[in-house]
């Protein structure tokens, strides 16, 4: 295995494009090193992105949004008060991944590129309307976060492409988000169902919303019908029931030892209601 430490994303993409064998990018390493250890992946070229300037930075963009470097850890994101104030749902999603030790290394980009349908930090990003900047040998392009995972363990990134940052839009006024997951214990587990809600209020009425489910389909899933169920309402009981039904109806989960299909479908509705209530409270500034 060759270990590379490029200083630019263009060089990282170039290394990947020129490589003929198995290539992996390394940021936090909490998935890649485990896969290497288990013998699931034996990279010929391992490209460490952490020396690239900006890779470990959280910066406010000119439009008032955020640019999150690909090597920013959960511990770093959680300690950033201004970011947390804007996007608490994104932070709580990443913070649910693994232990304190894992938080010292795990990244948003890594969680996204690992391609797990149960990735805890991805629903919050999709609800936030986040995009990723992708650098290839021919330049950069940007795509919505939900376009990246295409199935369990698979992404739409082409060989010779690398995610160079995650971009969040400006939060704006009277808005809030939240992420909740169900696990059968209190800590250190993988989501059986996850749900993120981001919404904006105009007075007491929900004017914008995005509802996203995790672990109930082959990829994290944006559910526009669930958002429509609450837009234009004050999130009264009827709206919450409509939200829950729409969320449950969108599920296409697997049945496994961690949760049955029926259970996951039911819980998706319950979590959607609870996450929406928390997002509403945050939007009201409480």
């Amino acid at each position: 295995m060759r270990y590379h430490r490029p200083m630019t994303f263009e060089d990282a993409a170039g290394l990947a494009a020129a490589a003929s064998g198995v290539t992996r990018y390394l940021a936090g390493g909490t998935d890649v090193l485990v896969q290497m250890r288990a013998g699931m992946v034996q990279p010929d070229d391992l490209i460490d992105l952490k020396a690239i300037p900006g890779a470990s930075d959280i910066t406010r963009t000119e439009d008032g949004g955020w640019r999150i470097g690909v090597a920013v850890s959960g511990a770093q994101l959680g300690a950033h008060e201004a970011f947390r104030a804007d996007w608490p749902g994104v932070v709580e999603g990443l913070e649910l991944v693994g232990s304190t030790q894992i938080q010292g290394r795990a990244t948003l980009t890594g969680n996204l590129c690992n391609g797990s349908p149960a990735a805890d930090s991805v629903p919050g990003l999709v609800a936030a309307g986040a995009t990723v900047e992708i650098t290839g040998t021919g330049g950069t392009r940007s795509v919505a976060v939900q376009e990246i995972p295409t199935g369990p363990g698979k992404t739409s990134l082409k060989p010779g492409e690398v995610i160079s940052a995650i971009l969040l839009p400006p939060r704006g006024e009277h808005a809030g988000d939240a992420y909740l997951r169900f696990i059968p214990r209190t800590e250190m587990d993988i989501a059986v169902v996850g749900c993120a809600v981001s919404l904006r209020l105009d007075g007491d009425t929900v004017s914008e919303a995005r509802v996203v489910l995790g672990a109930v389909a082959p990829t994290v899933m944006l559910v526009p019908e669930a958002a429509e169920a609450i837009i234009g309402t004050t999130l009264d009981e009827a709206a919450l029931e409509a939200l829950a039904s729409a969320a449950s109806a969108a599920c296409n989960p697997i049945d496994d030892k961690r949760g049955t299909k029926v259970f996951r479908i039911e819980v998706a509705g319950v979590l959607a209601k609870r996450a929406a209530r928390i997002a509403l409270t945050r939007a009201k500034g409480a």
Partner: protein
Amino acid sequence: MKKTHVTTKVNGDTVEFLADPRASLLDCLRDDLGLTGSKEGCGTGDCGACSVTLDGTLVCSCLVLGVEVEGREIGTIEGMADGQELHPLQRKFIEHAALQCGFCTPGFLVAAKVLLEQNPDPTETEVRYWLAGNLCRCTGYDKIVRAVMDAAAEMRQEAA
């Protein structure tokens, strides 16, 4: 396989070693530097027995490559006592009998030390969540949690 020369700081001392690019920091600490306090319970980030600090952040050394630590600062269990003088956490672990086989202990101590640096007055719940990534097959955790709470109390009094 071509080895890479790595220069880094461990417990304040500059050290050098030759790392196979696939070797974990844990392997480099134990096999190349002879620092065998950090343990390998799983090698996959699940047990916390290999806990160290990397530039002050708590990490699993089994999930860091040796070649990644060029120019960084690492803290291990070997740097915890001050010469013959045990760290309050180490003393309290002994007083409370918070260890049996001791395999998990270095990881718990390193992790607990970082917690108390960030939060000198943690609640029991905070201690339990912080240490959720450290597994122990012997003690049932209760004595560990009590030892950490007691050490925190003692350290606060000293600071005051």
